[in-house]
């Protein structure tokens, strides 16, 4: 049993395995689940290999970004290491028209939306506060203020309702919205208010909570005395708890929740029990607050390993894995090259898009700055 020794004998909320939906065990065996097995029955070997490829390439992206930060090419990097199954499984259940509101660690979800992940680097290189057009892949910008976007997702879902894109039965029309956030975020007022608004409005929104056991240095039991998914019922929101390192189970429960939302059945709260295998960000030092033993335990539950074991057992050829390694290497090189080639932002950019329409104060400050910079170019040389 993994325990926190800061707060006595309370076990980590989320390590008890009861209620946990699982379709693929740690050792790569498929397990039958009455409700959910049917939702992954159509996934053939090729589809499973696709999910595996997704996870491997996202991990490569994440690992490269971490290394780029170490080399001074990024200011900061929030790793998704260990959370690939939660992100890929849920992300692959989405339809193109569904809309995602991520926090800042959802690189895997971005990948499933078709976002060129290299665009994520701009923000962490200190060149952009966003980096992509939310409408292009129905993937909103990252949100750094914990929990705020849960309300945005709910409001967006209320818009979807008003557009009549719920319950038509047309699979290309009905839409759902997903908000991704962490265990720590569940304490924020905004997240709780989002659950209230979603419930009373039957909003077509899915709250996908990745319980990675840590909010920086605070274990989940500093946020809750009960498994997080149990919060749902108090709000009148159906909730499930899924093995977040099981890509198939994450796919299945998300698909169910999305169907409920799209058909007019309202919101769902999903708690995906996973583990932040890396530091909170590259600025963090987890050795100050968690044990090696705990990290080692979770390393044995790596989401990628278990699917690999399954694929191997099912007869996927070694060539598949070698080819994927080569693909990942090539991808890694692209990431490194791209990152170094991101152009440095012009200073004048700080005055752009402060408002959609002209604002005289911004204009006068921009003019002052332009003149100041120009003067500095000539005068400054003398100083």
């Amino acid at each position, binding site marked *: 049993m993994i325990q926190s020794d*800061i707060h006595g004998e309370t076990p980590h909320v989320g390590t008890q395995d009861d209620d946990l939906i699982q379709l693929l065990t740690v050792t790569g065996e498929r397990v039958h689940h009455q409700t959910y097995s049917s939702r992954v029955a159509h996934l053939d070997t090729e589809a499973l290999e696709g999910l595996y490829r997704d996870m491997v390439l996202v991990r490569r992206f994440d690992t490269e970004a971490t290394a780029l930060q170490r080399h001074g090419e990024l200011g900061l990097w929030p790793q998704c290491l260990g959370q690939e199954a939660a992100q890929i499984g849920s992300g692959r259940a989405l339809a193109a028209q569904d809309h995602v509101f991520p926090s800042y660690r959802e690189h895997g979800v971005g990948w499933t939306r078709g976002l060129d992940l290299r665009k994520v680097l701009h923000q962490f290189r*200190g060149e*952009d506060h966003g980096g992509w057009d939310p409408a292009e892949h129905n993937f909103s910008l990252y949100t*750094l*203020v914990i929990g705020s976007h849960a309300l945005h997702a709910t409001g967006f879902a209320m818009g979807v309702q008003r557009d009549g894109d719920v319950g038509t039965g047309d699979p290309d029309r009905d839409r759902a919205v997903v908000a991704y956030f962490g265990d720590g975020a569940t304490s924020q*007022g905004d997240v709780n208010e989002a659950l209230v608004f979603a419930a009373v409005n039957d909003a077509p929104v899915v709250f996908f909570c990745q319980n990675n056991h840590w909010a920086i240095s605070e274990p989940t039991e500093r946020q809750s005395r009960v498994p997080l998914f149990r919060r749902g019922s108090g709000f009148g929101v159906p909730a499930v708890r899924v093995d977040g390192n099981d890509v198939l189970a994450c796919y299945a429960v998300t698909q169910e929740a999305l169907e409920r939302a799209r058909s007019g059945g309202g919101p769902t709260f999903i708690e995906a029990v996973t583990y932040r295998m890396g530091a909170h960000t590259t600025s963090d030092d987890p050795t100050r607050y968690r044990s090696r033993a705990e990290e080692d335990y979770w390393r044995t539950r790596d989401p990628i390993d278990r699917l690999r074991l399954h694929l191997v057992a099912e007869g996927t050829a070694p060539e598949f894995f070698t080819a994927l390694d080569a693909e990942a290497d090539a991808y890694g090189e692209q990431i490194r090259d791209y990152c170094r080639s991101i152009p440095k932002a012009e200073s004048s*950019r*700080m005055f752009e898009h402060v408002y959609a329409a002209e604002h005289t*104060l911004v204009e006068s*400050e921009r003019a002052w700055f332009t003149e100041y910079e120009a003067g500095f170019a000539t005068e400054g040389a003398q100083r």
Partner: protein
Amino acid sequence: MSENTGTQRIPMAKAINLGLRRSMERDDKVLLMGEDIGRLGGVFRVTDGLQKDFGTTRVVDTPLAESGIIGTAIGLALAGYRPVCEIQFDGFIFPAYDQITTQLAKLHYRSRGRVELPVVIRVPYGGGIGAVEHHSESPEALFAHTAGLRLVSPANPADAFTMIQQAIASPDPVLFLEPKARYWDKADVDVTAADQVLDLGGGNGLHRARVVRPGTDLTIAAYGPTVATAMAAATVAEQEGHSVEVIDLRSISPIDFDTIADSVRRTHRLVVAHEAPVFFGAGAEIAARITEQCFYSLEAPVLRVGGFHAPYPVANIEEDYLPNLDRVLHAVDAVLAH
């Protein structure tokens, strides 16, 4: 030498840590609360070691909810405690904005003095550390506009050590703004300072400004992170033959206008520098008051140097947003040229 005596050369983060420790030793009603302040010691390590020494009831890792932190701190204060809350970064104070402005700032007033709210809110603030969005803000004007709150900001380790203890001793809520870019700047701090540091008024008072460099031709008023910039500007100006006086305001609510006015009556010129946007900023208030009080002493308009009316920019251009040495010198030149 023991950790708690003598003069030590320490960074500001450590000085605040020692000040917190001293306050907790002095008064067992003092307790710390915030995100990651316990075992981690805070993301800036300001509370390093305090949970180990004072336990988890006095150094509390709170749930991730700023409104909850300040709201429960109000309740604890009403129950007789002196909570010192840490907001992890300036940009994350806003979920607590309601509790701070509608409750914390007003309960003493509404109760006609019957209740006191000795709550300190520590906020690492300001830019210059190459951070991502929401980690470099200077929101002081938003709070200075609210009656009932006191706002102070130390600019050096010695002041940080003293002022945090004074803030905790204050019967009123205090926003304690810590210039995060200066956390690792070292200076000598006399950590033997006795209880006289708790004097909230008088010469050593929490809200008194201080002339940190005397001069005759022009005054620069600054606080927190820009004091060092103002000092650097004064050094450059001296090489160009101008004697610049620098005032470390130390307090933003109230502002020690007497010290500024006294200086301006001698130097006749004033520049105010802060990182926060100049529009509706502290500099605007100072310019207006000094113009009212010293109109006939002024030989040039009061100039402000600060942030623009734009969101704090991405890290790679923040140097051009911040009132850096060149920008301060530019204003100094302009005022002297009048």
